[in-house]
């Protein structure tokens, strides 16, 4: 019997503003077979060609530096946030 892959993680990814316009969706649940935030962000950037856009990343509602070595867990929520314009 084939052993099921247990180390895939499912992550909720949210897109806002100009980023959502580029991805053409606001939320998706995506599985990854790696769990480094920097790799996940890079793969999303490549998937939707976000290289020209400026954005910040939040993980579970907190802004993070996606260059840092941060581990993402199954069920976590990542958001791509374009520049803020409130007020």
């Amino acid at each position, binding site marked *: 019997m084939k052993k099921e892959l247990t180390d895939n993680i499912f992550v909720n990814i*949210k897109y*806002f*503003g*100009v980023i959502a316009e580029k991805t053409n969706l606001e939320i998706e649940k995506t599985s990854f077979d790696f769990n480094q935030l920097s790799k996940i962000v890079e793969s999303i950037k490549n998937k939707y060609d976000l290289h020209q856009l400026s954005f910040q990343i*939040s993980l579970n*509602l907190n*802004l993070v530096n996606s260059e840092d070595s941060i581990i993402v867990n199954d069920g976590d929520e990542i*958001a791509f*946030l*374009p*520049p*803020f*314009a*409130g*007020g």
Partner: protein
Amino acid sequence: MKNFFLNGPISPDFISNSIYKHQIKHNIGAHNIFLGQVRKDTIKSNVVSAIEYSAYEEMANKKITDIRESTFEKFDLTCLHIYHSLGVVEVGQIGFFVFVSSSRRKNVYDATKFIVDMIKNTVPIFGKEIFENNEYNWKVNK
């Protein structure tokens, strides 16, 4: 989690009603109010007719809750109310309302500036400037 967002513009009636509601709080001696109004900007010959606001609401409400708490820690305030619009706010309409109250006036000015700056710089709210010709531009706070 408290919700700081209202759909559509914030009406002058809503603002005056907020003032009215504070008349029963007799320890207050000073209010300070900040109102953000949509400006008729011209961007590369396009004239702004409205801003359509959106937000990462869950994170924004959490952030504003944190800002509210740290404002109470920093300044001696009696009351503090914050409201921001979502959706379309037309030129001349109000999309942001901060209402700061204290026993004396000294604190309310600094507290208002602190809150407005923090909200502009750290809360995930996004604005689409809609032009009179129906084209648009994504706004960035300077």
